[in-house]
């Protein structure tokens, strides 16, 4: 299925990058299967696909991190085999990874110097960084220490690092997953400017609205193969989603908010210094969640979400027991198991290693938190009950796996997330705390998980969702609050607010910010985009 763009390229005949029949076979999986791709100079080309569709593998081949099993690659019309990332950079290919590779304790200029060959002069380099950052609207102070930078600023450092090498092709891997809406706008301005100067950009994402706004053309991958090409501006997000998952996207049925029920979770002026030197101190956090509602907490990661969630789950109990109340009981100092007995369940954001033990089977992982549901008698495990629970969970939550004896790490991220969400829900919680419910989960599974949360709310459960995805919160939450710099904004009913307002609040600027809370000394919160 080669798209109609074969004839477009008559003017600038030579594509910057062309892939022909690229395949990559791993022992257990075919990650790429005969992929063709063509990127013209100055083109912003989207590569979209679900989790596991083969996007990352393809980029690693282009960047020389891994080598294709079959197929050819042409750079500026000439056949080339990229040996390693240094080779890729010397060709003029730069890549900004989804997870940053900066040293926290070094300054910006030192971090950049590390990626350059030889021993560059730091003063001269700092001036070059300033020049590039000015030219492309990427404000960064080269002398600042990296750990003090916001996520958006770190990404700018990564981009500047690539731009210093004057790339002709820039690969961006899910660049907006960590940015506020305002920061996304600025990033897009920078990318458009680069494109106008002739730099080609490969933009990997699963956010369809962004692709529509930014990209000139798109290649859709599904299960390692090219599912089609399209011109995003001529498509709708719905039609692209269909191309991506092969069927229509299920739509969440929210239903009107109901009258608020009884108070299930109450956090009262929670203040705590973080043990982590790079952590965030919680400062006077108060929030309430009632039965039958979903409260969403928005915010850019690293603004206190981890610390708040650990205080809620009991992984880091508090000295003051009254700061967290679950179902009317003082629970601040209780350990996790005692909080579960009060009816709280918790889905953490890391699936492997925290929500599940990687090498253990699904059945054994069911036992991890659901053991109070008749799985243990006289201190001994009842294996039949464990197995039944796991089988139930797999069936009810549509977990694709090899059965209850499959090790957790053999599942895809989305399926393991469904299993963990299912395990927590099947314990019939009164209060469910969920962190990043659909992070890295494919579109179909994400819709399923969101609908499950809404159904649970309709059944009268109190739900707190912490998420970086604003669209998600607007889809499912009844009220939204924002966490920034360890402080929390007042909550607002979702229907009375919009993405722009919440985006503004994510920079720490909500009405009354600075004068509210116990430590309200007007200190300006960082991360202003």
């Amino acid at each position, binding site marked *: 299925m080669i798209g109609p763009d074969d004839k477009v390229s008559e003017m600038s005949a030579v594509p910057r990058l062309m892939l022909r029949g690229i395949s990559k076979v791993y022992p257990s999986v075919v990650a790429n299967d005969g992929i063709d791709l063509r990127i013209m100079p100055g083109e912003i080309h989207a590569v979209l696909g679900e989790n596991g569709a083969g996007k990352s593998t393809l980029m690693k081949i282009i960047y020389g991190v891994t080598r294709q099993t079959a197929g050819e690659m042409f750079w500026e019309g000439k056949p080339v085999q990229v040996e390693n990332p240094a080779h890729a950079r010397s060709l003029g290919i730069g890549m900004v990874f989804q997870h940053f590779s900066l040293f926290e304790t070094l300054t910006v200029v030192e971090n950049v110097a590390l990626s350059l060959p030889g021993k560059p002069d730091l003063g001269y380099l700092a001036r070059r960084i300033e020049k590039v950052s000015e030219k492309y609207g990427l404000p960064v102070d080269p002398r600042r220490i990296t750990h003090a930078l916001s996520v958006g600023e770190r990404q700018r450092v990564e981009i500047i690092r690539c731009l210093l090498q004057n790339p002709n092709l820039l690969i961006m891997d899910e660049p907006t997953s960590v940015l506020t809406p305002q920061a996304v706008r600025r990033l897009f301005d920078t990318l458009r400017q680069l494109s106008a100067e002739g730099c080609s950009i490969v933009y990997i994402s699963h956010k369809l609205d962004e692709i529509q706004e930014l990209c000139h053309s798109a290649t859709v991958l599904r299960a390692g193969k090219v599912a089609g090409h399209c011109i995003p501006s001529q498509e709708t997000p719905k039609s692209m989603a269909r191309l991506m998952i092969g069927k229509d996207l299920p739509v969440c049925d929210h239903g009107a908010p109901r009258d608020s029920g009884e108070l299930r979770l109450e956090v009262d002026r929670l203040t705590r210094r973080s043990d982590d030197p790079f952590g965030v101190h919680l400062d006077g956090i108060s929030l309430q969640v009632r039965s039958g509602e979903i409260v969403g907490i928005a915010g850019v990661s690293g603004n206190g979400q981890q610390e708040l969630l650990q205080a809620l789950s009991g992984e880091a109990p508090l000295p003051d027991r009254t700061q967290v109340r679950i179902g009317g009981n003082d629970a601040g100092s209780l350990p996790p198991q005692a909080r579960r007995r009060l009816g709280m369940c*918790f889905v953490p954001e890391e699936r492997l290693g925290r929500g599940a033990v990687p090498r253990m089977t699904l059945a054994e992982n069911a036992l991890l938190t659901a053991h109070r549901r008749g799985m243990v008698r006289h201190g001994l495990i009842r294996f039949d009950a464990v197995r039944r629970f796991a089988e139930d969970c797999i069936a009810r939550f549509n977990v694709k796996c090899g059965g209850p004896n499959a090790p957790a790490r053999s599942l895809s991220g989305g399926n393991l997330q469904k299993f963990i969400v299912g395990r927590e829900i099947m314990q019939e919680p009164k209060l469910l705390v969920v962190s990043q419910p659909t992070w890295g989960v494919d579109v179909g599974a994400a819709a399923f998980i969101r609908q499950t949360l809404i159904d649970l709310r309709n059944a009268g459960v109190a739900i707190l969702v912490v998420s970086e995805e604003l669209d998600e919160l607007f889809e499912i939450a009844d009220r939204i609050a924002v966490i920034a710099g360890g402080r929390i904004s007042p909550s607002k009913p979702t229907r009375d607010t919009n993405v722009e307002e919440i985006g503004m609040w994510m920079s720490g600027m909500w009405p009354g910010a600075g004068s509210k809370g116990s430590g309200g000394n007007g200190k300006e919160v960082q991360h202003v985009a």
Partner: protein
Amino acid sequence: MWLKLEARAEASQRMRYLSPLIAVGLTLVGGLFLFAALGKHPLEGFKVFFFNPVHDLYGLSELCLKATPLMLIAIGLAVGFRASVWNIGAEGQYIIGAIFASGVALHYEQSASHWILPGMVIAGAVGGALWAAIPALLRTRFRANEILVTLMLVYVAQFVASWLVHGPWKDPQGFNFPQSKMFADSALLPILLPGTRLNAGFLMALASLAVGYVFLQRSFYGYQMQVAGQAEEAARYAGYSYKRTVWVALLTGGAMSGIAGMSEVAGPIGQLTDSVSSNYGFAAIIVAFVGRLNPIGILLSSLLMALLYLGGEQAQQYLNLPSSISKVFEGMLLFFLLAADLFIGYRVRIVANPPLGKLLWKAH
């Protein structure tokens, strides 16, 4: 040409249990070559080493006697190893257990009370557990690596035992040998089969395996320890304590090693000497892994290891081979097991050109 280890898509469960058998098979084949290389007739050597020791009832009783401390230590170590707590110092805990038990025996040498033996068991367990409490404390307080601390404490324990039998506990009628007085009958484990040395310690070992089976394979607490050992974050999330896991793992291993030490001084040796251990503490690590940290597996592998000990003695007597032949067999067994285990998870592939990029760049 380049050899490359490549992860298998899925590790075979069947091979996990077959791998110790393959290792045993390869060890036996290796033994044939070893005998041949030493100028002995391979089959003759084989017979002397593996068949002679167990061809009569007395031989079998000796086999069980040798296996007793190995079982006791290995089952205790399995509790810790399953939780990824690596207690390598069972040898030291064994020696301290033997010292504590000897202390009770020597202190009450005039008494004929039935309570002396149970007292010695408890003293041995306490001694071993105390010795293991040092690494547990250092691990949980200061994150000191338990592998190093337990190992180093072995040598300390050996010097303590040596000092006692050269000094305060030396038998006055012992012709200046480094050993304590012989224990009174009331401090010796009763013999099970008349005419042999097999004693009640063997029953203790079997009972420990049964208790260990319930704890490791069935109990919720054993499961929690495995979680804590494999994924500390998951344990904290579920509310299981990692520190408590370290403590239980080390104290259990220490106590069982201490009981093994008691079963030797109150059994075949009958006194404290400065060589109370014949490397049981280290051999038991191999026993635990060859037995796949499973109580039934440990039962079988401890009998195999005991056979290697006895075969070594036979080889000295009848083949004029040095006693270290046993150690060579032990080493071969461990080597082949580790090698066989590697191929459970990986396979070898021959690649034409070494992928230089991979060597220089760690895949993202």
